[in-house]
């Protein structure tokens, strides 16, 4: 089920009505939420709920065993069981064709003439998200960093909680399961603020990403020809806006919906395009994934504890795998590799050419970071290297006679939207929507809210999927 659909509106109203009715005890409400979460997921493809059940059951048993088992070898076996099952599903559903294609290419380069049959496997929605979330529980249990979930119901709800099930935020067990132990009710203000965040998230998705930017992106990246400098840049800038509004929009919706239930989810985006460098960017973009990768990949790989070379290697491996997490294609791996390179270069700069960030050079630095991020988005959006290369060469003015596919209005529209987006991120980088809202007059905030709602309704979102569902 998509947040930007009428069926979700009805679903949410029913869930909220049952949640705040006096029909259920707290345990009953949790059961209702769990059932609702399976309905939320199952209405897309019912059989794939079984995967959720298997992950839940395996990790519940693993957590239970790890809570009592002291034998190190046995503890490791239980952890491996959890990882094999979760990563096995992920590999089979998401990476099977990619691995097979590469295997075929390598084998055939030795002249074997091997042909693998395509299986046309459906990618279960949000599998990367719930796999990482549930794995964090077993890893934390193994490392004795978290308590075992008190009941199976609490754990199952943690794995399946519908607001963040299919596209995050990826929440750690200690941050979410503990919230299920005692009855939660949103205050009136929390409930209204949750509703505001839901509206804001839908506005980002339906109006900004789908209505104002997606066509420009599709026109440029689907042109199939070498483009003009302006078209290449505007298409890429539009994508930078589209993917931010799409993904941040989902996270904002998720946080808002959870808040309406009295559950607090962590922030996932903090004005990333106002970042001062790439370390800062990854503290602001998809925060729950970057902290996951830091805690469960970068640090176990050695982090910065074993010298500079090992640190850079760990950084690069983390970013390459982070790229692969986003999609089973080499273009995503290159995207991760570019981010790894940026992070390494930034650390070298800090070591060898340090400088103090002031208000004056800060904006220049943020603009430079944003520009470099746009280069990486080319590989993220382009499905093939040929397209990516054509775009990159056009963006570096190497194709001055490239074709024009965008009208003047498209250029103006993207320029204004992305310009405002960048400035907004820059000026908001040390504050939050909530802090700004508190300073606004109720009339002004009410008018902004009504304006967003009006545009959502007239945009008539056609139920476009969120981009991150495919990850």
């Amino acid at each position, binding site marked *: 089920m998509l947040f930007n659909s009428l069926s979700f509106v009805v679903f949410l109203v029913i869930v909220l009505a049952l949640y705040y009715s006096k029909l259920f005890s707290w345990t009953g409400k949790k059961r209702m939420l769990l059932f609702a979460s399976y309905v939320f997921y199952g209405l897309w493809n019912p059989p794939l709920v079984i995967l959720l059940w298997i992950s839940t059951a395996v990790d519940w048993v693993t957590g239970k065993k790890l809570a009592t088992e002291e034998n190190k070898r046995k503890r490791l076996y239980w952890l491996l069981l959890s990882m094999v099952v979760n990563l096995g599903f992920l590999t089979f559903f998401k990476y099977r064709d990619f691995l097979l294609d590469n295997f075929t290419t390598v084998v055939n380069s030795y002249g074997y003439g091997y042909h693998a049959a395509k299986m046309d496997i459906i990618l279960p929605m949000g599998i990367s998200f719930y796999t990482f979330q549930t794995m964090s529980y077993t890893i934390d249990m193994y490392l004795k960093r978290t308590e075992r979930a008190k009941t199976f119901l609490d754990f199952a709800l943690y794995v399946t909680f519908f607001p963040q099930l299919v596209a995050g935020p990826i929440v750690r067990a200690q941050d979410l399961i503990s919230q299920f132990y005692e009855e939660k009710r949103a205050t009136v203000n929390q409930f209204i603020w949750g509703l505001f965040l839901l509206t804001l998230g839908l506005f980002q998705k339906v109006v900004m990403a789908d209505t*104002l930017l997606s066509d420009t992106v599709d026109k440029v990246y689907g042109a199939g020809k070498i483009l003009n400098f302006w078209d290449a840049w505007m298409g890429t800038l539009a994508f930078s806006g589209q993917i931010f509004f799409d993904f941040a929009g989902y996270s904002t919706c998720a946080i808002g919906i959870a808040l309406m239930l009295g559950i607090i989810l962590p922030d996932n985006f903090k004005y990333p395009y106002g970042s001062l460098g790439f370390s800062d960017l990854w503290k602001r973009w998809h925060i729950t994934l970057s902290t996951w990768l830091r805690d469960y990949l970068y640090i176990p790989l050695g982090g910065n504890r074993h010298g500079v070379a090992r640190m850079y290697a760990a950084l690069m491996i983390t970013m390459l795998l982070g790229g692969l997490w986003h999609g089973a294609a080499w273009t995503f791996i290159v995207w991760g590799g570019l981010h790894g390179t940026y992070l390494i270069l930034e650390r070298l700069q800090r070591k060898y050419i340090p400088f103090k960030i002031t208000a004056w050079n800060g904006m220049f630095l943020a603009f430079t970071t944003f520009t470099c991020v746009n280069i990486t988005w080319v590989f993220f959006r382009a499905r093939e290297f040929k397209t990516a290369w054509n775009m990159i060469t056009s963006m570096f003015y190497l194709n001055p006679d490239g074709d024009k596919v965008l009208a003047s209005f498209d250029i103006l529209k993207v320029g204004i939207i992305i310009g405002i987006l960048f400035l907004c991120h820059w000026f908001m980088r040390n504050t939050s929507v909530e802090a700004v809202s508190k300073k606004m007059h109720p009339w002004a905030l009410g008018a902004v809210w009504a304006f967003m709602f009006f545009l959502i309704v*007239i945009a008539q979102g056609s139920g476009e999927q969120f981009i991150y569902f495919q990850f």
Partner: protein
Amino acid sequence: MNLKPTLIIAVALSILSLSIWELYWRSQTDHFKAGLEDDRYLWAKERAKVETATTQDIVLIGSSRTGFNFNTHVWEEVQGIKPINLSTDGKPPGPFLDDIVHNTSFNGTIVIGITPVFWFDKANNTWWKGAQKWVDHYHDETYAQKLGYFLSKPLQRHLVMLTSSELKFYNDLDLKSLINRIYIPGRIEEERMLYNFSYHDEDRNLIMFPAMINEPNFAKKIQYVWSGFLPYLPEYETIKDDMPEIFEYYRNVINLFKARGGKIIFVRHKSEEEWNKHTKRMLPREKVYDPFMKMINCPSYHFEDYEFMSKYTLPDWSHMYYTDALKYTKDIVTKMIEDGHLQSYKN
């Protein structure tokens, strides 16, 4: 921070602004009318009927001319059977024929309306892919989508402001279409947008707005859009090498359908002026349509061969006005029955 006043203000302003918006568009009766969108969801409902259709049933496929020119209610009055209307505005019928032949056991009659530029086109081009998406939607529609559509129907039936289309070349009322009307000259040529010139009933019959015949300038605006792309249709010489492949593809599909007892009737609806001129230039009848019909050996009705098919004036050079379409349907179904290609089930 007390958010109650904010919420009350937001709700009040939302209701006010949306009411004004709806009232404004309700006043624009020449172009807009509340009703279910003729989208992939409505099409899927119709497509589902093929699963249980019998040998007596009729399936209509074709592009917008089939949607405008045939009226299923009149058809039912004449023959006693209401056809399953799978015609689609702006889409080639090839993928729909392919779907029926390969994914159902239907062995009744398929009436195919031919718009040559759509029919004699290679599979898997842009238009074909657009139609294929509807077929895929039918087979892959999720329960969430079905529920969403069920919930949206009352809203679509009553709110004009929800007028929208998957086809991007209409002046619809969704925000994207409204923004796409803005054009600043300078870089590339403006894409000509079609004014909404029709609505449809829930049986997917397309009905032309009265303004198309009452206001001469309205029809001219549609003609202006056609004349923006028709001259750019390719010459026959440049596409003739594609024809053997296209013919072969259809021959296989049609033979498969005929082998299981199915019957196909082709109808080449009338076109006029620029539409007719450029279609003839691109796909001359004697080099394409006639050899094709000879090859597949199915009954066919070409507007140039029958006076009752060519006597109406088409306001936009391509589609019939509603009242003409009613008479046209009656005449052509009667003729098909007389010729023995259709059986009358009228009591």
